């Protein structure tokens, strides 16, 4: 991805390019709040259309940064913590979950995560995906999830960390649900 565009996105969120994912999420949420319809601080600054445009731009910046971090994840993996190494050294254990990965991939991921004894924060640290988004995936809250191109990456990371079987099929069934919901909303 274009380095300049990523840098510009960091600038627009008021962050340095060294900011952590948590800082990125906090800045993003603060700015969304600042430019929300109810915001007293920006009430007189812009009309409805300009506000929507601003929020859309923020979302694009946020997603671009997350996406760039996701691509850096393999590099980061070399610097994993002691706890991480311990975790990956454990043999994959067989767990029993009752959700159907085809029908309800979010709940399936949640049950897999719980069966592995991982909190949302644990998964967030290992995937570099925010826990807010991870929860959005588990609960099929499509409105909080990013564009498909990023979402696929998030799902794959999530499934990999909880050692889900047949990751590709799981991602595909989630994407089908997501796209149906999105297109349904458009009509």
């Amino acid at each position, binding site marked *: 991805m274009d380095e300049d565009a990523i840098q510009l996105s960091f600038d627009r969120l*008021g962050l340095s390019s060294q900011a952590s994912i948590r800082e990125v999420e906090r800045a993003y949420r*603060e700015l969304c709040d600042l430019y929300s319809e109810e*915001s*007293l601080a*920006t*009430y*007189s*600054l812009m009309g409805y259309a300009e506000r929507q445009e601003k929020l859309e731009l923020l979302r694009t910046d946020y997603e671009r940064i997350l996406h760039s971090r996701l691509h850096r994840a393999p590099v980061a993996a070399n610097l994993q913590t002691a706890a991480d190494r311990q975790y990956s050294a454990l043999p994959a254990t067989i767990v029993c979950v009752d959700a159907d990965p085809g029908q309800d991939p979010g709940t399936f991921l949640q049950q897999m995560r719980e069966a592995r004894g991982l909190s949302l924060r644990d998964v967030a640290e290992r995937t570099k995906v925010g826990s807010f988004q991870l929860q959005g995936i588990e609960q099929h809250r499509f409105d909080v999830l990013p564009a498909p191109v990023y979402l696929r990456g998030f799902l794959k990371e999530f499934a990999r960390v909880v050692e889900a079987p047949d990751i590709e099929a799981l991602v595909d069934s989630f994407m089908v649900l997501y796209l149906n919901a999105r297109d349904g909303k458009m009509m």
Partner: protein
Amino acid sequence: MTGSVDLEHKAPRPRIWAIGGGKGGVGKSVFSTGMAMTLAQKGERCIMLDADLGGANLHTFLGMSHPGRTLSDLFRNQSLGLKDILLSTPFENLWLISGARAMLDMANPSYLQKMKVIRQIFSLNADHIFIDLGAGSAFNVLDFFLAAHEGVVVVMPTPTSIENAYHFLKAVYYRKLRKVVRELKVERLIDAALSAKVKSGIRSPRDLMIDLQHRDPIIGEQIVRAMMPFRPRLIVNQVQRNEDRDLGKKIALACRDFFGIEMTVPGLIRTDERVLMALKSRRPVLEMFPNCPFAEDVRRIAQQMTRVRR
């Protein structure tokens, strides 16, 4: 004792503060009086300058009924200087330069009259000078604001007050930009940028700066650098609701993000009905209710603001 001297030693003397904010009735005079009284009580020599020409009433805030000499005497009499119209107040270490009894034409003093006042402010013998500005964004108000070392913008948590504050900030920013551009002799560059304003989508000072840097990277950079010290402070007054506690931070964030104007937020002032009670008795709040929430908040802000910056 030496501690406070040490903190102050880098600040200019007198340190000049201008208090503005666009809208009337948000508490500019009450805040200026509170700041001056706080510092005067700590032994610092303070002068209040009532620059609300045409609507001056600082003397009433200080419990003085008929100011003797005022700015109108200075404007009428060439031989008088600012120090000749300095009035003692009922309070130790606190003096007043009144703008009262102004003639109708005094709300708009000539450029020369204004420059005379601004020049002389710097030679007054005091630690702090508080210039209490009138409402609105007229050139007089903007020039006093820009002449001061520290500009303070006072707002209230209402849409109208915030709207006027943004208008004021933008006006004062463009006024300063004009000066910078004139000093650098690059009027043509800025005229070109502004005439292409609509076409190139310039909607805020921030957009203009980006456009200038694009048009001429070297001069653009010089302008950006010259504008950098412009860093007003923001006080949110009459805060009542919990959700308005971080309003100052939000306005500062919007200013940075939307206008490219950096602001600092030294604190907020809670709503306090004792302010109105004191006003009705024509006595300063800090004298009548020295320990009320308003007094506490102003003291905290004064402490924060008199720390040497950077």
